[in-house]
């Protein structure tokens, strides 16, 4: 197996090296990848969506359908891992299973420090979410930071402590709800007569002059979409961690 793997990877590497001379040089401003489609986004994002962070506008609007299913991937991961790993204490006897030794976390130093830092992490997460239109950041990053804050709490104060704040019922429902917010915004656009995810159809909700209202509608719908993404990613990260760390029993973590 080892030699086979080596041969395959060397083969792939040599094939790729052959292609090098044909690729545009690194940093070429005029290569097709940098000019054909992507230039359109840079040219038009401001007047069509009003969002200066081009990554956010393309992520949530121009290619919003991708992002919706990306949220779907995270949601699938939660449901899939729950389906495979979750164990029921009513059906299986937890005493008979061999488990690694458990040392309850000592909250004296790490616990207190974590409790000190967690609120700041969460504030920063919310800032990243809300300011994603103007600076790096957005739904995913915010979701991961918020999820990481809960994971930190679980690692330092025991999984039970974190699970009492964000219970299993809640994180499954929240991950579904986030996906539903995203898809629901898209569906609302359909009810207002546009295509799926055509946020400008929501312009009547904004009021004001039609051309301005369309841009405004895109701007605000993007924020809603990012909020949906945040919900899903936050609960998903914590869900995956808690299933993995407790080996599916949901009683104690690392």
């Amino acid at each position, binding site marked *: *197996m080892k030699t086979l793997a080596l041969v395959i990877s060397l083969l792939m*590497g040599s094939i790729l090296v052959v292609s090098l001379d044909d690729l545009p040089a690194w940093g070429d401003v005029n290569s097709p990848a940098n000019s054909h489609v*992507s230039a359109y986004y*840079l040219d038009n994002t401001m007047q069509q969506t009003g969002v200066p962070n081009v990554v956010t506008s393309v992520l949530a609007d121009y290619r919003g359908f991708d992002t919706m299913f990306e949220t779907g991937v995270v949601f699938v991961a939660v449901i899939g891992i729950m389906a495979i790993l979750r164990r029921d204490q009513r059906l299986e006897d937890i005493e008979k299973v061999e488990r690694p030794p458990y040392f309850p976390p000592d909250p004296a130093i790490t616990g207190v420090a974590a409790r000190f830092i967690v609120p700041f992490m969460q504030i920063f997460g919310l800032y990243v979410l809300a300011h994603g239109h103007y600076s790096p950041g957005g739904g995913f990053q915010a979701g991961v930071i918020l999820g990481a804050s809960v994971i930190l709490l679980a690692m330092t104060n025991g999984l039970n402590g974190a699970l009492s704040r964000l219970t299993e019922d809640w994180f499954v429902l929240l991950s579904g709800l986030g996906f539903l917010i995203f898809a629901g915004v898209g569906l609302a656009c359909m009810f207002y007569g546009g295509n799926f995810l055509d946020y400008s159809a929501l312009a009547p909700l904004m009021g004001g002059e039609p051309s301005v209202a369309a841009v405004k509608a895109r701007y605000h719908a993007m924020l809603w979409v990012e909020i949906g993404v945040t919900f899903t990613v936050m609960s998903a990260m914590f869900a995956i961690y808690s299933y993995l760390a407790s080996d599916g029993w949901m009683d104690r973590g690392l």
Partner: protein
Amino acid sequence: MAWLEANYNYLLVIVLLMIGLWAMIGKNNLIKKCVGMCIFQNAIIMFFISMGAKAGSTIPILKLKEGATTYGVNDYIIDPTQYDNPLTQILMLTAIVVGVATLGMALTLVQKMYAEYGTCEEDEILEKIK
């Protein structure tokens, strides 16, 4: 040397792809396989990002013009050559998230196999399945 200077990013991508693929196929420990999978995906992300970089440009967030006081359409510098390619970055945001979801799923399976067979070495598991 000039060739190296022009292509070193792609060369790194190729080396990482090779390492990742080798680990995915050849490693015996299942967790190592999962880590190899992450390296493989990371290399592809690196490839896309290198493809979207432009010499002498900055991050794809529109800059305000000098002395602009409002945030209207005309107050931003709109010039595609000044900003990096946003498209490849968006694609790779998606790829990162897909990667972590796949990693979670793979690790779950490793844990279930450990519960079933008491080991996470591929050859020992195959021995026990027989």
